[in-house]
């Protein structure tokens, strides 16, 4: 069991997400950066879909009432003031503090997983629909299955650095925009705005102009969809988005590059490049292989050998 001393800016529980109910208006939720979430779980020795904490901007302070094996990705951490990284152990009574995120979000996993009430098949917090556990508050108790961890390290050099270039599969509604706007979208950088959240990253840059009048009938939306409201400023939908929307989607960010959007801070820029469905799938396979190389299993500590 862990007690929340300070909750951080916005800390939620996220597993893989709540699937199969989008046709009933239920959002999937799940991590805004699936890669950081998966790596934290793998460092903790968990399946990737295990419930972990998603930390926004700056992290919580947690008092551990039991020994536990934890793992952090995306932010510095201390145990009773001593710096730790990647996978680390805490003893009963120790305090874990997670600092300022490197990007927009960090993930804290515990070996065995955090335990929250299962709502419609998932422990994920749906911030928009109000389903799942409430975001952490001071005094809140987190339940975790105590479980032994294996020392693991993360090798960030094994992971690709996208350098702010994000690949996009054009469509389904690219034909709603003028040819000039479609060119501009892939030619000029966009900057993240401060009102971005788990539902989407709001961008500003070249305004996208529609080539047709009228409104799009409401349709299903995927995570990564780049929606364009009448203002012409695109919004990239993250995992917290609603299942349907009414703005045309000029393109969809490929799964391999979604983590870049999940980590984008206000003021930071991205540039979009169009790719084919085949290239998008190949990029995901490559990233999975890189993830395998990035998790290093360390020799056992002499104390355990």
């Amino acid at each position: 069991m862990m007690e929340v001393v300070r909750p951080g800016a916005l800390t939620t529980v996220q597993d893989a997400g709540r699937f199969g109910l989008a046709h009933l208006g239920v959002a999937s939720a799940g991590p805004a950066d699936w890669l950081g979430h998966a790596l934290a779980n793998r460092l903790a020795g968990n399946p990737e879909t295990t419930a972990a904490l998603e930390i926004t901007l700056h992290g919580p302070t947690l008092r551990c009432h039991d020994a536990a094996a934890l793992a952090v990705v995306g932010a510095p951490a201390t145990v009773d003031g001593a710096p730790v990284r990647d996978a680390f152990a805490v003893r009963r009574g120790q305090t874990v503090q997670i600092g300022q995120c490197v990007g927009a979000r960090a993930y804290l996993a515990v070996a065995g997983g955090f335990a929250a009430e299962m709502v419609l098949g998932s422990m994920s917090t749906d911030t928009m629909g109000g389903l799942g556990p409430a975001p952490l508050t001071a005094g809140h108790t987190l339940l975790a299955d105590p479980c032994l961890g294996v020392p693991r390290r993360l090798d960030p050099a094994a992971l690709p650095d996208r350098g702010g270039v994000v690949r996009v599969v054009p469509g389904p509604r690219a034909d709603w925009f003028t040819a000039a706007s479609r060119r501009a979208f892939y030619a000029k950088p966009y900057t993240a705005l401060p009102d971005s959240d788990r539902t989407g990253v709001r961008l500003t840059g070249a305004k996208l102009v529609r080539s047709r009048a009228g409104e799009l009938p409401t349709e299903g939306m995927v995570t990564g969809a780049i929606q364009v409201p009448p203002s012409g400023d695109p919004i990239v939908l993250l995992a917290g988005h609603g299942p349907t929307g009414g703005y045309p989607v000029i393109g969809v960010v490929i799964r391999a590059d979604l983590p870049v959007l999940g980590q984008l801070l206000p003021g930071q820029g991205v540039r979009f490049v169009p790719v084919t469905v085949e290239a998008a799938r190949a990029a995901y396979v490559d990233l999975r292989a890189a993830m395998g190389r990035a998790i290093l299993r360390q020799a056992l500590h002499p104390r355990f050998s």
Partner: protein
Amino acid sequence: MAEINWLPAGENAVLLEVSALATAHQVWAALRQADLPGVLDVVIGARTVLVVAEPGFDVDSVREVAARAGPGPDIAARTVEIPVTYEGADLADVATRTGLSTVDIVRMHSAVEYVVAFLGFAPGFAYLTGLDRALQLPRRDIPRTRVPAGSVAVAGEYAAVYPSPSPGGWHLLGRTSVRLFDPDEGALLGPGDRVRFVPQ
């Protein structure tokens, strides 16, 4: 066989566009029933069905199922009666805008058997088609910051009931005590269901 326009929606999803809501319902029902392995969600829209799948999913299996879709007893459509107290905050305003009396508004709103077109906006929020043309109004100029749960409302071509308190720009005609969404049970209404409003 339904005429379907196939649109890419990233590398793990495909958007099937059809010409009418009824066709969308048929395609949606066929895909739900097929329960293809690897498919995470099948989301119905006003003229579309979005199939969201796990990475590596082969979209050809969707083509086969969608091609077979047709009219039939695919959708286990239920008829749900929703009791309404017609004392909504916008009843008088809707009367002014439409030139109808509040008695007429209640009669027209409760005379129709609605069909659940699709859900969205919030868990359990069903967009109901069949609204009398005379009651079709654009959304309010200034949305409310909080509409209470159970509010029975209209906007554009749709009628709806707010399942949970939320911001909203629809015109409020009344309220119901029926729960439209429960975190344990799920949603009361699904695509294709029929709805009748019964004045209390």
